[in-house]
């Protein structure tokens, strides 16, 4: 459909407004990170990359990044595995309490995260577990694994059960079917679930706040610095975090592209 002239103008205006609304705050943080001043002020008088140098040299920053990364990577891996099997239970098999399971599994997503974090902290205390970054992994999983499961389940719903039956009919056992048919077909869903899991864990603040104990993740530190004693490293780390996430997504896409290219060239060789 070709939009009329006035519709086109409205579409452009809408597009520009939305993009500006989404990205203006990020851009201003970007500017703040290259300001030479110790305090956040506009307009920026002198530019400097000093804070990036400081950030990269700082042990605190290194520890923060490492803790956040550790938590996010472990949450991602566990989420992907749980989501794969969970999605099969969710979408592929018909069993007695399936609809109940489908509803219960989504409930944690609707819990306010601060409430969930506090509840988990109380629970950890009552069973005598001292909160560290490890308990934060559990807390993140409670919230993120259901989301990941939902993402894979959407893929699993569009999957023709006859494909597995056909493979079995031609002599494939349960594990062969899983490896040759189910896993490859759900893979795009599993990869997107993994990406979401990583980003949700990496940027999570409310759950981490209650459950990391003495350890600190990047969002927690950023918050602490903003409420008590502003550091010019805040916008710097904020920008680094965004760039890091962006690089991760690029990486995931290029891996997917690479896998497809390899598969096609192998098919062409045969």
């Amino acid at each position: 459909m070709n939009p009329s002239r006035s519709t086109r103008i409205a579409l452009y205006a809408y597009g520009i407004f939305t993009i500006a609304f989404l990205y203006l705050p990020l851009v201003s943080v970007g500017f703040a990170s290259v300001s030479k001043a110790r305090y956040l002020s506009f307009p920026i008088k002198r530019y400097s990359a000093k804070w990036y140098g400081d950030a990269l040299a700082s042990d605190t920053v290194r520890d923060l990044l490492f803790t956040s990364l550790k938590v996010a990577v472990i949450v991602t891996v566990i989420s992907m595995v749980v989501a794969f099997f969970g999605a099969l239970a969710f979408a592929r098999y018909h069993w007695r309490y399936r609809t109940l399971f489908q509803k219960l599994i989504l409930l944690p997503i609707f819990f306010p995260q601060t409430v969930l974090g506090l509840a988990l902290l109380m629970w950890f205390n009552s069973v005598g577990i001292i909160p560290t970054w490890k308990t934060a992994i559990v807390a993140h999983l409670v919230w993120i694994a259901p989301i990941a499961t939902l993402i894979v389940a959407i893929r699993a719903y569009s999957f023709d059960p006859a494909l597995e039956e056909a493979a079995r009919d031609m002599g494939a056992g349960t594990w062969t079917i899983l490896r040759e048919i189910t896993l490859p077909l759900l893979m795009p869903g599993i990869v997107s679930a993994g990406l979401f899991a990583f980003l949700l864990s990496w940027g999570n603040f409310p759950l981490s706040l209650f459950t990391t104990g003495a350890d600190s993740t990047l969002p927690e530190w950023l918050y602490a610095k903003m409420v008590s004693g502003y550091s010019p490293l805040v916008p710097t780390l904020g920008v680094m975090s965004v760039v890091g996430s962006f690089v991760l997504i690029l990486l995931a896409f290029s891996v997917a592209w690479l896998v497809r290219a390899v598969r096609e060239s192998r098919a062409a060789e045969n």
Partner: protein
Amino acid sequence: MQSQPILRLRNVVKKFGSFTALHGVDLDIEEGEFFTIVGPSGSGKSTMIRLLVGMDEVTDGEIWLRDARIDQTPANLRPTCMVFQSLALFPHMSVGQNIEFPLKLKGTAPAVRKERALELLDLLRLPQSYYDKRISQCSGGEKQRVALARALAFDPEILFFDEPLSALDYRLRKTLEKELKSLHARTGKTFVYITHSLEEAMVMSDRIAIMKEGRFEQISVADEIYGRPISRFVAEFMGEVNLFDIEGTATGGLHGKGIEIHVNGDASDFGISLDNGVTGTLMVRPEYVRFLTSSATSDFIVRGILRAEYALGSRIQYEVEASAGQTLTIEKLREDRFDGAEGAEVVLGFDADHVHLIRGA
């Protein structure tokens, strides 16, 4: 036909909870036969094929493949293979990988696999360049052929088909019906085919089984089922038909119930007599009913009024309303078209050779 059937079913029962889908079915399928099971939806034919390939378990009874009892063997250990209604081609594999899949599972070397896949592409009249194509790049008919090639690569003892043509348009279906029949002749394999389409069954099959409510109503060759159906159900299922309720008279003649049928001569001479008071159904297919002109005559005569005329392409169909509102269907080739205005009185005739008596209906 050989002495020992390749597939034998003995008193096969399948229940889903309190619902019985199959009521103790017996069946023998001969080596190399093209056997088709036809029935309306809900007749139990899909349940039947799922039991035969091993995707569901029998509740009771036995299934034998030659000398081996297989009803407890899981699908992946049975030497049979099925072409699915949805075809179930693997979308993440190329055409070649799909065809080679069963061979890969059997541990065949890659070079041998490829050679066999290319042979099968030839057999199914697909160009060898399709080997590297993606499934999504194939048309509906090409997908059918790939699914067939994959099933043949498995080299099954029996090849099962679960309505694989039902989703295709008419022309393609007609082409593929003939191809399947010729493929059956070229491979010499036993084909067991499930469909709800009578035409498909008639074109391809050596023998046809008609299913109704979890039982076989009739098992025979196409001509027999079409011309000498065992029940009203089979007669009506196998295409257009005229059925008349009749009753034997005290004088050994026939008397139409709700319709006036004039019998020219003695019905018992035609071999279609009923004892006094016994009812039955007289069947005649539309193509055997003639419009009688003044001088002509026939064994059976019915009078009525021409109500409608429909063009069916090569044939013309007429509807004639006889006495008491019963409608007769008549079909003529276009070249034998009957010139009569709607509402005209007509005399219809048919001969004993083309009449079949269904007893006890």
